[in-house]
């Protein structure tokens, strides 16, 4: 097992190094970055102060250095936690992101947990009640959930909430609590605002995962050990949950690595519509303004999260199913 973990971790490190190279390329891609813009601005300004600034900036970002030196400068700073300067907000990238990434994680992780709980329950139900009316209804919802883009679902729900329910949605707090200190009513208000984002962010993931769960369970229900369990006279509930579901969960752990990026992808766009203070809107705005250090730091953060998430999924899977270690 230890051997397996070390080998997997080694792979993950190599992947991370390449991820960093891709990140660096993305910084270098846009023709006119904010840094160039700032340098040009300073040059036209002239004066001693500007010359010093230009020198400092060129030194920090390695503007005139060869590519590999430039990469190394960025990479070594990045690893040490210095992510660069956001020219758009005139603030440190790390500072800007750390204020928002907590919310991103809160929304994605809650949505992930909610969607797992729902998809396992729904998947088991529709597999055990195959070809009944509820199963067809669930299938219909699954297809719709997969084909409605998250931001559209968010828009429709917001229009519905505002026009028919007269609710003010979007954001995390109602306007009267926005500046207020933490209190019980404020917390209740927060909970009232959370359900729409969590439903919307989790929708397509839930649709997909419950579909996978249904398929897996249907395969497992045909196995002989399920038949054996039934013939021993076990209660159907025990047959399903103790014998079948446990064995149908493996592929679901395997797709965990895939469902997480999907949820984060959706969250980025949905946050813009729902006006959530997560890192998604900051990222998109940075891209539109070519504020590349901010954008790439967020992208790198997501990639690191995913690589580590995949590593964890691999290890959990190996622990659930020891055969995998020897493949």
């Amino acid at each position, binding site marked *: 097992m230890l051997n397996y973990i070390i080998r997997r971790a080694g792979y993950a490190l190599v992947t991370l190094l390449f991820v960093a190279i891709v990140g660096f390329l993305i910084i270098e*891609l*846009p023709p006119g970055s904010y840094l160039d813009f700032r340098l040009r601005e300073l040059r036209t300004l002239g004066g001693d102060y500007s010359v010093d600034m230009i020198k400092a900036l060129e030194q920090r970002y390695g503007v005139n250095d060869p590519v590999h030196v430039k990469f190394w400068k960025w990479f070594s700073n990045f690893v040490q936690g210095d992510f660069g300067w956001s020219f758009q907000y005139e603030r440190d990238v790390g500072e800007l992101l750390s204020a928002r990434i907590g919310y991103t994680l809160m929304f994605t992780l809650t949505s992930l947990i909610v969607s797992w709980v729902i998809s396992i329950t729904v998947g088991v139900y529709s597999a055990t009640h195959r070809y009944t009316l509820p199963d067809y209804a669930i299938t219909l919802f699954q*297809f719709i959930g997969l*084909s409605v883009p998250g931001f559209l679902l968010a828009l429709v729900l917001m229009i519905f909430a505002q026009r028919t329910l007269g609710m003010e949605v979007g954001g995390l707090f109602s306007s009267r609590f926005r500046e207020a200190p933490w209190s019980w009513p404020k917390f209740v208000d927060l909970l009232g605002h959370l359900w729409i984002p969590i439903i919307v962010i989790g929708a397509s993931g839930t649709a997909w995962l419950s579909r996978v769960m249904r398929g897996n369970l249907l395969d497992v229900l045909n196995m002989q050990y399920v038949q054996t369990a039934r013939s021993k006279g076990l209660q159907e509930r025990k047959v399903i949950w103790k014998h079948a579901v446990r064995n149908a969960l493996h592929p679901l752990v395997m797709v965990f690595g895939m469902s997480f990026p999907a949820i984060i992808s959706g969250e980025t766009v949905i946050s813009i519509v729902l006006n959530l203070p997560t890192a998604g809107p900051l*990222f998109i705005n940075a891209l539109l303004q070519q504020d590349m250090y901010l954008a790439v730091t*967020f*992208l790198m953060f997501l990639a690191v999260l*995913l690589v580590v998430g995949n590593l964890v999924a691999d290890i959990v899977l190996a622990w659930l199913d020891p055969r995998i270690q020897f493949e």
Partner: protein
Amino acid sequence: MTEETITPVPAAVAAEEPASDVGELSQWQLIWLRFRRNRLAMGGMVILAIMYLVVIFAGFLSPNAHDTQNLDYIYGPPDPITFVGPNGKLGLRPYTFATTTVLNQATFKWDFEIDRNTRIPIQFFVRGDTYKILWWRANLHLMGIAPPDRLYVWGADSLGRDMFARTLVGGQVSMTVGLVGIALTIFLGSVLGTISGFFGGTIDDAMQRVIEVIQSFPTIPLWAALAAALPNVSESFTMLHRYFLITVILSLVNWTGLARQLRAKVMSYRQADFTSAALVAGASNARIIFVHMLPNAASHIIVVAALAIPGMILGETSLSFLGLGIQPPMVSWGALLRDSQQVSTVVQHPWLILPGIGVVITVLGFSVLGDGLRDAVDPYSI
């Protein structure tokens, strides 16, 4: 290639072949038979065919041209349509009601009011704005009302342009992005996947790492970051360039899935008897790949491709919605939905999200089609 000549089947064996009235079906015929039995998938195919026809004939089907501005009808609501005539009887001729503008004394804005008493007959095959179908110029429209009035079945946008026409024309971009993108994906995925699976060793290892790196980014943020590097539309960088490069970006990320699946297929084919036979017969690597392996994998390639199209359409929609994909004056469903990014605007003018219907129907169509194909490709299972 003398080695490849196959000895003719002895006559005795040939006689035992099934009689011709049993009939023989090729692999593809079997797939088609199975596919046809799947009503959901057939429905998806029919709906998609209709959708493609509709967006091709967008100019003819919509009452106005998609870029005709009407400053008297900014954010105008959809015109209601009734089959009840002026005499109060239900008939075959559709009518719409006249709209008047009223100054709202509270907000000091012009509000639209529908005059339920004045009916305007809707005419068929009327002449109106000029439009283009492929390379053809025409000005005949399926429906319309007598000028100077205009018919807006789905309302109008911030410049008084017909939302229905814009949705149909936007479909021309959104519904082809997936197809062009998938063509590139199939090309990249099958070439790289086959090489990786066939040659194995270092090439395979390197390829797998590359795929892992690409897959360790969440798709939409990575697409967005790549699209942000594209220059804005200008003289030298036309809308068509942008459209094409967006499809390239979409497939640059998307080929990895197909490559992985194809690699696994090719690896299993390497152990198959037909590959050994071809090798012994002296076939070259290229011949084994193109004549023996790829035709066997073709059905799987098609399935993976069909299942990947919805993701590409959704990708284009999201990118354009964020302002990083298709940009005005070109229209696509995502670019149209960008107008509804301001929630306060949409709540007042909910018809701005109608282009979303196109996205949902198309993606739904491709999803059930892909699902049906996946079930159909293995014709020997029951």
